[in-house]
């Protein structure tokens, strides 16, 4: 399949004797928005963190545009730090707690990776940074420091910072979980805009409404395995498993639009 951006085969991850991921297979195609649902401790964040090697997989293979990440050595895969750094520039990640660089202005935050990692010239990096800030609606905050921004604004800067690297795919790790409820919308709208622009995305979230309206596909993860996946309108209304039904029932505030 030529338009596969991320392909995961038999991904396992254990922390000591605790198995968090027990064999994940997944193929994310170009322009697809895949939402990952699951209870806390189900392994959904770990899955995301393995894809850009914030956590090293214990077993399994990950392909970016069809190319194996790492070197095959008789069945197991070996990774070099320099290759992983290169790979991470192509896989953008946004965190729950924003993790903006507090000593840099918003503009410098968005320029930093471009200049330090990609070696872009300051002028080009600044133009790119301003373009991405425009995209997330924060052009007027370019010279502010992160401490002066609201949570929603911080998260949109974090999105711009990741986008400025021109990634092939974006990973969102519960990016609205640390926000006040009234700030969630602005961040979700930004991500939705990216989906409309054709960005390939994996979104771990508890926002079922977002999954319902924006995702092309929903994965439900339980005990480190994909228990169900499918088209959101189908799977969110009529889950096949009891586990997923219980999970959906647990989100009491969730009302499907009828």
């Amino acid at each position, binding site marked *: 399949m030529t338009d596969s951006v991320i392909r995961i085969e038999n991904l396992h991850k254990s922390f000591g004797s605790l198995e968090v991921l027990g064999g994940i297979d997944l193929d994310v195609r170009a322009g697809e928005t895949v939402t990952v649902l699951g209870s806390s401790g189900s392994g959904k964040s770990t899955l995301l963190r393995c894809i850009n090697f914030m956590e090293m997989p214990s077993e399994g293979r990950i392909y970016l545009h069809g190319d194996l990440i790492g070197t095959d050595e008789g069945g197991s895969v070996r990774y070099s730090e320099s290759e992983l750094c290169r790979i*991470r520039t192509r896989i953008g990640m946004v965190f729950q707690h924003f993790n903006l660089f507090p*000593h840099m202005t918003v503009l410098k935050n968005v320029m930093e990776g471009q200049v330090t990692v990609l070696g872009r010239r300051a002028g080009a990096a600044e133009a790119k940074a301003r373009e991405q800030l425009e995209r997330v609606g924060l052009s007027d905050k370019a010279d502010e420091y992160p401490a002066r921004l609201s949570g929603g604004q911080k998260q949109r800067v*974090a999105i711009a910072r990741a986008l400025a690297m021109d990634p092939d795919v974006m990973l969102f790790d519960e990016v609205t979980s640390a926000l006040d409820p009234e700030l969630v919308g602005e961040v979700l709208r930004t991500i939705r805009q990216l989906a409309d622009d054709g960005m390939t995305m994996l979104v771990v979230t508890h926002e079922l409404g977002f999954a319902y309206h924006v995702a092309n596909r929903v994965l439900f993860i339980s005990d480190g395995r994909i228990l169900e996946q499918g088209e959101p309108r189908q799977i969110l209304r009529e889950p096949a498993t009891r586990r997923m039904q219980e999970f959906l029932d647990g989100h009491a505030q969730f009302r499907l639009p009828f």
Partner: protein
Amino acid sequence: MGHDWDFVTIAQNWGVLWVGLKGTLVIFSVTVVLGLGGGLIVGICRYIRHPVSRWPAMTFIEVFRNTPVLVQIIWFYYAFPILTGIEVDPFLAATLGISLNTMAFSAEIYRAGIQSIEPGQWEAGKAIGMTYSQALRRVILPVAIKRVLPALTNRGIEVFKMSTLASVVAYIETLNQAKLIADLNFNPIESYTVVALIFFVVLYPVVQATYALERTLAKGD
């Protein structure tokens, strides 16, 4: 127990004290740069989870933190030349003692600063493709150093006062020169009082400035 204070003799010997004060400033400048600069390197080595850098750094820190500076200076002056055949003058002996001791203490300050940075900052650097050393230099250290600046300034003040220990190997600094005046004029009370005053006059404004600095930094967070 009345004492007739006589500062005229001191004033007449001001030139002698001035030479000492210059010596104090010279050794302070050298030791504060070596101590706080070298401490950053030792602190990073101590922090990095790599046995090749960590164990030497830990050993260095423990040796120089748990032995008195005065003994270190005397050791470098009297013992080191006999053991190695390398001649050590008073300035070098005092500089080694004070710098190495300061490196050991400030290394722990830097390490604490680096450790205080949220893991999310490392991850954010890593996620945009930074190597470990890029993340350290561009993301972690600027914030860590800012955070420990008050502690480092305190260290710097200590270094300034520690310079008087150099008098034990007859390096020409303020205390050494005051002793000269005291011995020649039989006025130890005035001589040593003036030494204390000189240090107070130099340091008091500096300490006040650091308070102001701390307040400014606190506002920024």
